[in-house]
């Protein structure tokens, strides 16, 4: 056999092509971006083969989050929620607002009011968003509780009806989850089958991580930076409510942001409640309800939702997993 030029050049080109294919073919691209939105860090992860498609999906998902936040947040003067709170009887709302409220009312009814979207005035009274919050007087708390409760809010089509003029709607315990769900829908519409949308720890895990099932760490409620448990999930929402992020201390007591609608004060039965379920909106509302109800009643409520699981850390630090929790438990 004799050497010739085309053969040599051909071999070199073939080797280069194989090298290029080795580095590019089959590789999964990962687009990971984060922004400050909805008063927290929102992170979107999308993986797939087409970077352009992933970038477009993530851009559109962020745009959807911004749109819905303007509709559902009480921090915008022109939002549905601000408009409702300022009106005496309620009024017509956007279909998205109606959808959130309908789900919230259902969880409120099933939890016997432990989840409550009418605590707007009470939350302002406690002022946990302010620099120097103080414990309000019992008289002020009683006044903020007047005319509220889930029975004071109803929905007829797109008409949201307030039974009491001073009722201030607050979707803080459900809107963020709903918005995350809608952002996930946007990713799906773009053909993304693997990714995550995480808004300050309330998240949905789409498909699985490029290399393994999604591994989600659950924050330890009393150890800064500590992990209470790790779960492995795919196509599930994971939401945690805890007393450790927004709180102040007065006279040796911790006053946090999850209120018991019966007392008008921070709920005392738990340190944290984690829920794994099918949508972040439901998980968001259930995690709040479980926290308020405490371990026993909380797990009874969770049992009404097939396919859901949870882990409650009681006020004394004991762990109360639901029946299905072990199915998700990963490496410690």
């Amino acid at each position, binding site marked *: 056999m*004799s050497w010739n030029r085309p053969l040599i050049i051909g071999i070199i080109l073939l080797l280069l092509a194989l090298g290029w294919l080795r580095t590019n073919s089959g590789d999964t691209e990962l687009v990971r971006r*984060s922004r400050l939105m909805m008063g927290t860090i929102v992170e979107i992860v999308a993986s797939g083969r087409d970077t352009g498609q992933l970038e477009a999906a993530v851009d559109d998902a962020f745009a959807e989050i911004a749109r819905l936040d303007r509709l559902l947040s009480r921090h915008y003067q022109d939002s549905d929620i601000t408009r409702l709170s300022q009106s005496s009887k309620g009024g017509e709302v956007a279909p998205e607002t109606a959808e959130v409220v309908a789900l919230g009312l259902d969880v409120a009814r099933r939890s016997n009011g432990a989840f409550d979207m009418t605590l707007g005035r009470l939350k302002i009274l406690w002022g946990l968003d302010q620099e120097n919050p103080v414990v309000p007087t019992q008289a002020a708390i009683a006044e903020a509780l007047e005319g509220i409760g889930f029975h004071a809010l109803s929905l007829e089509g797109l008409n949201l009806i307030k039974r009491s003029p001073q009722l201030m709607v607050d979707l803080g315990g459900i809107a963020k989850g709903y918005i995350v769900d809608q952002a996930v829908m946007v990713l799906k519409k773009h053909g993304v089958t693997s990714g995550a949308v995480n808004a300050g720890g309330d998240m949905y895990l789409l498909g699985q991580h490029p290399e393994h099932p999604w591994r989600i760490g*659950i924050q330890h409620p009393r150890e800064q*930076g500590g992990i209470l448990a790790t779960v492995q999930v795919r196509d599930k929402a994971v939401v945690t409510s805890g007393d450790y992020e927004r709180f102040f201390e007065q006279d040796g007591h911790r006053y946090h942001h999850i209120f018991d609608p019966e007392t008008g004060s921070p709920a005392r039965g738990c340190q944290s409640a984690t829920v794994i379920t099918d949508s972040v909106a439901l998980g968001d509302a259930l995690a709040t309800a479980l926290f308020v109800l405490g371990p026993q009643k909380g797990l009874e409520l969770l049992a009404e939702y097939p396919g859901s699981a949870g882990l409650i850390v009681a006020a004394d630090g004991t762990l109360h997993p639901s029946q299905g929790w072990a199915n998700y438990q990963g490496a410690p």
Partner: protein
Amino acid sequence: MKKPWQVMTKGDWLIVLTLLGVSIAGIAWLAAAPKGTRVVVTSGDQTCFIAELDQSHSVDLDGPLGKTHLVIDATGAHVTSSPCPRKICISMGPVKHSGDLLACVPNRIMVRIEGPADENAPYDLLSR
């Protein structure tokens, strides 16, 4: 039988050397890519600070409310003082794994750990 290099013209050599040069340059570029884990800070939409995670550092970061003080040490990157009302950024503690995020939302400061995926990280995302 002639040796391969005896049948190649100057043009052949030019093609071969060009391809080899491109390959070597590509390998060198990949080798020069950053391998360490970095702390990247954005203020608003602008990247305002980048540092290696394994080198101790202390910096004041300007935001609309004032200065957020970030410390990088053996525990990771963490906020030690902040002009924000609720100090959630301080209570979040240190971040150190690739992909970890820390933010002072009122002061529009976001700290991100960037680098190769940490095989030893116990989780991909944190629910809190």
